[in-house]
């Protein structure tokens, strides 16, 4: 199978990686030791592997790595600025929205894409916005609380 060198931009950093056509974006992230993005189902049903590609919420397990080259990829590791958490991350921590934490990276990335498009959502809209992300621990209540709190914080303090 053909191997080729492809360029990726992940969390603002350029990477040059040898890829084969059958690598998924999830496989690529793992090769680069970016273990924050999780895989729970591998078939696009759980949302745990959600990353942003050119700002669009994208399932890394269902995306070919090679199809994502030359695009801006944002993973959970790219949200915080050093020790400064993104408002969504802070809100998840403060609201008690994190239990086992396995769904958290995908949940936060999806929430970011959602708030980027809809900065003043209702509770119902937040639930709809997270409809593609499964969680087994929290029952979603505090996750929705956290997204609403983050929306409020981002309106006050700006959307980083």
């Amino acid at each position, binding site marked *: 199978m*053909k191997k080729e060198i492809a360029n990726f931009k992940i969390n603002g950093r350029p990477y040059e990686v040898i890829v084969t056509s059958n690598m*998924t974006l999830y496989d690529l992230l793992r090769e680069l030791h970016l273990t924050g993005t999780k895989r729970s189902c*591998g078939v696009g049903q759980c949302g745990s592997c*959600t990353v942003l590609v050119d700002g669009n*919420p994208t*399932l890394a397990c*269902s995306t*070919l790595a090679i*199809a994502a080259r030359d695009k801006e990829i944002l993973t959970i590791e790219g949200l915080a600025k050093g020790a400064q958490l993104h408002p969504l991350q802070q809100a998840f921590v403060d609201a008690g929205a994190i239990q086992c934490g396995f769904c958290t990276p995908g949940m936060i990335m999806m929430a970011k894409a959602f708030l980027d498009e809809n900065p003043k959502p209702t509770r119902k809209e937040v639930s709809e916005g997270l*409809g593609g992300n499964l969680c087994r621990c929290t029952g979603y209540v505090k996750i929705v609380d956290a997204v609403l709190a983050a929306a409020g914080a981002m309106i006050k303090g700006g959307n980083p």
Partner: protein
Amino acid sequence: MDPFEYFEPRTVEEATRLLFHFGKRARILAGGIDLIPRMQKGDTEVECVVNIQKIPGLEYIEPNEREGLTFGAMTKLHSIELSRIIQNRHAILYEAVHQITSVQAKSMGTAVGNLCVATPASDVATSLFALGARLKVTGVDGEREEPIEKFYVDYRQTSLKQGEMVTGIVLPNPLPGTGMAFLNLLRTHADIAKINVAVAIVVQNGICREARIGIGAAAPTIFRAAKAEALCISQRITPEIIRRAAEAAADETRPITDLRSTADYRKEMARVLVKRALEKALEMAQG
């Protein structure tokens, strides 16, 4: 995933040539949300993936007073969801897309891709049956249009010939007096439909001029319940007509029992959903 050859054509012509060359062993990559998981599970024998994401001019939603509204092969489900004109004039397409809970699937996935998977459970496809959609098909020999009713020839089989791809969908403009409704039943909100029903009627001067009743997940392909439609045409849509049409529609189903539901339940629910959809469509037509 097994290894495969990968191409990023820059024109539709290039894409169709590749598809023609590789035939059954080729797959189009648009959104990938159906294809990639299936390839990971080893479900398809894919030797070649043709990524059409880089072909310009395939991502659009264009209303046209004469021809109807068209959208392209790379038009994302989310764009359809956000389109005001689709919400207003082709409401059941909006509803079918909106009730898909995975925002990721709607951001990545395309309506055309959804149609081409050819599962009889596609909510989007059933709504397009009721909307009288036509598919724009391009192959190595040129272009043609296919009414959606002809598109599905059998379970997971489309009428596409070797080298052909769907480049867009045309939705005829709704006539005055149009009413429509989309309903489905699911186990959880994030699920493939157990059964779905999409209805569009045109009522003028109290008489039903046109009726399209699409039913999905109740036969090997989505189908139009022709007998039920015939009961409505040239009639005043009364509760009795609705009842009889719903019964006829249920009779036309050939459902199976699978993980999502039973044949018996699907048949019963075809009746219930067609009845409710006709009631709702009538209310809209008269409103």
